[in-house]
C-alpha cells in the first residue's frame, strides 16, 4: 500500500504518528444499527471529525499501511470475539476530549459482559449479581450477542464493584461466572434518546391508543401512525431507544396496564421488551402476532410476565414446530399460567410453578406430568430404602447433594421420657421446641453429604415397609420437588428389635444422576407407631400409595404371586415384580429367579424374614 496521491513515503509521517495513535484510541466497536443484536459489517468509526493539522489526513487514513493494520485490528475488535478494549488506558489528549464530547462519549459509561450469559435465566443472573453488590445499580440496555449477555452501567464505583463480582457467583454446575467490565460509550438507547418533543408526541399518540376501561394499549403498526409520521418521528420498536422510550411512557402513564398489543411492528428480537417485566408487571395479555420472531427462545426474554393470553400467529417461529401440540407445550413452558394462545382456549395446566419473579435457575429437565413424577419418586424411594435397610448406608452418598441438609426430631423433651424404642434417636434429635443450645442446633443439622451419611449410618438398623407408605407431593417447581413420605419401619436388631416405629420424612430434591433424585433437604420425624399402624403394616402388601398408578392384579395373577412367594421365599412385592418382568410366565420367572439367586444378585431384603 503506497500513498498514491503524493510523493512522500509514509516514513515522513512520523510527526503525524501522534494522530494515527489517536485514531486508534478512539476506535470503538459500536453498534449504531438499531440495537445490539447483529454485528455490523464494519465498526463505526468516530474519527471523522478529528481536527488534524496534517493536510494529508485523508490520505493517511485510507492509503497508509497503518490504516490497513487498523482495519485488521478493527476486525479483531469486532463483536465476533470477546471484546476487550484494552487500549483505552491512556489519558486522552486535549484534542480527543473535544472530539469525544462531540460524539456523546462520556467516560461514565461501562459495558458489562458475561460470556455464556445466554445460558442463565436473566432475572436469576441479574439478581445474583445485584446480591453481591453493596449498592443497587441500574442495568441499561440488557441484551444478548451470540452467547454473551451484556448491559451498561453508569458510574465508576459501580463498575469496580461489578468487576469484583467476577468469579464470585457459581452457576448450577458449580462453575464460577466471569464478568468483564470495560469503559464504553453511552448505550444506544441513551445516545439516541428521544428528544422531549418527540417523547411528548409519542405519549399523546399512545394515549389515543389506550383503552381505559380495558386497560389495554394498542400499539400495532406503531411506526406508521399518522400522528408520528406527520411529525417525522420514526418509532421503530426494534430499536432500543424507541422501545425504551415506549416502555418509559408505559411505566409513567399506564403502570397498571393489563393488555399490550404489539402486532405488526416487525419485531425480530425481544431484548428491549424484557424491561416490561419491571415497568408494567401486571400485563396479562400480550399480542406479538405478525412480527418477525424466529424462535420461541425469544419469548424467554419476557417470561417474567404472568401471561394468561398470548398471540403469536404470523411469526416465523410458529412454523418451527412439528405440530400444534409441540407448539402449545413449548409456549406453555415459558408461560405456565397461559389460558389462551392465538385465541384458542388451552386445557388446564398440570403443574403450578412457584411465583416466577423469584430467583429461579434455568430448568435442566422438564417434568412433563404428575404421572411421571409419581413414578420418579417411587422409584427413588425404592432405591433409597433398599440401601437404607441394607445394613450399609454408605451407598446413599450418591443420593445427596454436596451441600444437603439433614435433621431428625422425635417428640420428646428429655431422654427419660422417651420410650425405649426412641432412645437411640434422641441423641440426634434436633427438636427446636426443646433444644435451646444454639451450638447443638447447629451441630445437629447435618450438612454435606459426608456428614449426613455418617450420621445416618449411626442410626439403628431398620426395615421399612414400602408397600404401606403414603407419599405427598406438595411442591413442584421446575427445579425442585418437595414430597413427604409417611410410613412405618421396624427395628431389626438390638434391644428394641421388632418394635415398629412410624416416621414422616420430608425430602426436597432436584433431578439426580446416580439416583433419580438428588436430595437437598431431608427432615425426618420419628415416633412410636400406633397399634393401628403396627397392625396394618408389614402385612400382605395392599398398595395404599396415594400415587399408585399400577393396574390392579387379576385373581389369577394374585394367586401366582402368592404361590411364587411361597416357593421362592421372596416377599410378595418382589415376587410380583419378578412375574411382571417375565410377562406372567410362571416357569420363566422361576428360571430367572433361580439364575439370579445363584449369581447372588437378589438383595437380602427381597426375602421374607423368617419369623
Amino acid at each position, binding site marked *: 500500500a503506497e500513498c498514491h496521491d503524493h510523493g512522500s513515503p509514509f516514513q515522513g509521517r512520523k510527526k503525524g504518528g501522534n494522530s494515527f495513535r489517536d485514531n486508534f484510541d478512539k476506535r470503538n466497536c459500536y453498534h449504531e444499527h438499531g440495537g445490539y443484536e447483529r454485528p455490523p459489517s464494519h465498526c463505526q468509526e468516530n474519527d471523522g471529525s478529528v481536527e488534524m493539522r496534517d493536510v494529508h489526513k485523508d490520505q493517511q487514513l485510507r492509503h497508509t499501511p497503518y490504516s490497513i493494520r487498523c482495519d485488521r485490528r478493527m476486525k479483531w475488535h469486532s463483536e465476533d470475539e470477546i471484546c476487550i478494549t484494552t487500549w483505552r488506558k491512556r489519558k486522552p489528549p486535549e484534542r480527543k476530549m473535544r472530539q469525544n464530547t462531540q460524539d456523546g462519549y462520556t467516560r461514565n459509561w461501562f459495558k458489562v459482559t458475561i460470556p455464556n450469559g445466554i445460558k442463565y435465566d436473566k432475572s436469576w443472573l441479574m439478581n445474583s449479581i445485584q446480591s453481591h453488590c453493596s449498592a443497587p445499580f441500574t442495568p441499561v440496555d440488557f441484551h444478548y450477542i451470540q452467547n454473551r449477555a451484556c448491559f451498561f452501567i453508569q458510574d465508576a464505583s459501580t463498575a469496580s464493584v461489578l468487576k469484583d463480582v467476577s468469579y464470585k457467583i457459581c452457576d448450577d454446575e458449580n462453575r464460577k461466572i466471569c464478568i468483564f467490565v470495560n469503559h464504553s460509550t453511552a448505550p444506544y438507547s441513551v445516545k439516541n434518546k428521544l428528544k422531549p418533543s418527540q417523547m411528548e408526541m409519542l405519549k399523546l399518540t399512545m394515549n389515543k391508543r389506550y383503552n381505559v376501561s380495558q386497560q389495554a394499549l394498542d400499539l400495532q403498526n406503531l411506526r406508521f401512525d399518522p400522528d408520528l409520521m406527520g411529525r417525522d418521528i420514526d418509532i421503530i420498536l426494534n430499536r432500543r431507544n424507541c422501545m425504551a422510550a415506549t416502555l418509559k411512557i408505559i411505566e409513567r402513564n399506564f403502570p397498571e396496564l393489563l393488555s399490550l398489543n404489539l402486532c405488526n411492528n416487525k419485531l425480530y428480537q425481544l431484548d428491549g421488551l424484557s424491561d416490561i417485566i419491571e415497568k408494567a408487571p401486571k400485563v396479562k395479555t400480550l399480542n406479538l402476532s405478525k412480527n418477525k420472531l424466529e424462535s420461541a427462545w425469544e419469548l424467554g426474554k419476557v417470561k417474567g410476565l404472568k401471561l394468561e393470553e398470548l398471540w403469536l400467529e404470523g411469526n416465523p417461529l410458529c412454523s418451527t414446530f412439528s405440530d400444534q401440540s409441540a407448539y402449545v407445550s413449548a409456549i406453555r413452558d415459558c408461560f405456565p399460567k397461559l389460558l389462551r394462545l392465538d385465541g384458542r382456549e388451552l386445557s388446564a395446566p398440570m403443574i403450578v410453578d*412457584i411465583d416466577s419473579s423469584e430467583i429461579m435457575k434455568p430448568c435442566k429437565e422438564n417434568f412433563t406430568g404428575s404421572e411421571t413424577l409419581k413414578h420418579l419418586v417411587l422409584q427413588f424411594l425404592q432405591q433409597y430404602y433398599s440401601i437404607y435397610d441394607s445394613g450399609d448406608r454408605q451407598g446413599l452418598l450418591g443420593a445427596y447433594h454436596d451441600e444437603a441438609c439433614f435433621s431428625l426430631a422425635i417428640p420428646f423433651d428429655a431422654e427419660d421420657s422417651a420410650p425405649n424404642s426412641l432412645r437411640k434417636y434422641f441423641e440426634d434429635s434436633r427438636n427446636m421446641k426443646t433444644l435451646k443450645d444454639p451450638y447443638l442446633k447447629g451441630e445437629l443439622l447435618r450438612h454435606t453429604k459426608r456428614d449426613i451419611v455418617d450420621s445416618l449410618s449411626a442410626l439403628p438398623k431398620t426395615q421399612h415397609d414400602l408397600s404401606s407408605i403414603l407419599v405427598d407431593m406438595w411442591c413442584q417447581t421446575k427445579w425442585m420437588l418437595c414430597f413427604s413420605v409417611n410410613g412405618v419401619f421396624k427395628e431389626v436388631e438390638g434391644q428394641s428389635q421388632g418394635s415398629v416405629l412410624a416416621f414422616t420424612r420430608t425430602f426436597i430434591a432436584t433431578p439426580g444422576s446416580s439416583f433419580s433424585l438428588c436430595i437437598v433437604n431431608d427432615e425426618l420425624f420419628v415416633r412410636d407407631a400406633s397399634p393401628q399402624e403396627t397392625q396394618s403394616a408389614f402385612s400382605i402388601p395392599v398398595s395404599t400409595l396415594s400415587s399408585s398408578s399400577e393396574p390392579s392384579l387379576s385373581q389369577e395373577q394374585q394367586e401366582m404371586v402368592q404361590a411364587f412367594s411361597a416357593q421362592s421365599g421372596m416377599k410378595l412385592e418382589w415376587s410380583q415384580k419378578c412375574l411382571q418382568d417375565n410377562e406372567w410366565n410362571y416357569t420363566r420367572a422361576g428360571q430367572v429367579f433361580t439364575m439370579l439367586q445363584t449369581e447372588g444378585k437378589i438383595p437380602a431384603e427381597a426375602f421374607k424374614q423368617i419369623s
Partner: protein
Amino acid sequence: SFIQHCYQLFDKDRTQLGAIYIDASCLTWEGQQFQGKAATVEKLSSLPFQKIQYSLTAQDHQPTPHSCIISMVVDPIMGFHHMFLLKNTSDAWVCTNDAFRLALHNFG
C-alpha cells in the same frame, strides 16, 4: 415464632391467614391440593374445628436452596403433622407451600 403467629391467626381469625400466603401458594391438605392464596384461606377457614389445642411437641427446620426455610411441626396429641416451605420476600416471610396430614389417618 412464625409458626406461633400462624397458629394464632388460625385460632383467632382465619381470614387473616391470607397475609402469610401468596398468590402462588399451594396447600396440600390430606392429599388434596389447594392452589393460590384464595383457595388456601378458604380451605383453612372452612375446617370444622374451631380452636386447636396445640401441644406442639416437635418442631424442626432447615434452610433450603433459594433462601427458603422448610419447617416441620408435629403434634401427636391432636395427631397432625404440618410442613411449611417459607420464603423471605421483601422482608416478610410467606408460606409458599404447605402440607398437612392428620397422623392418625395415615392408614385409614
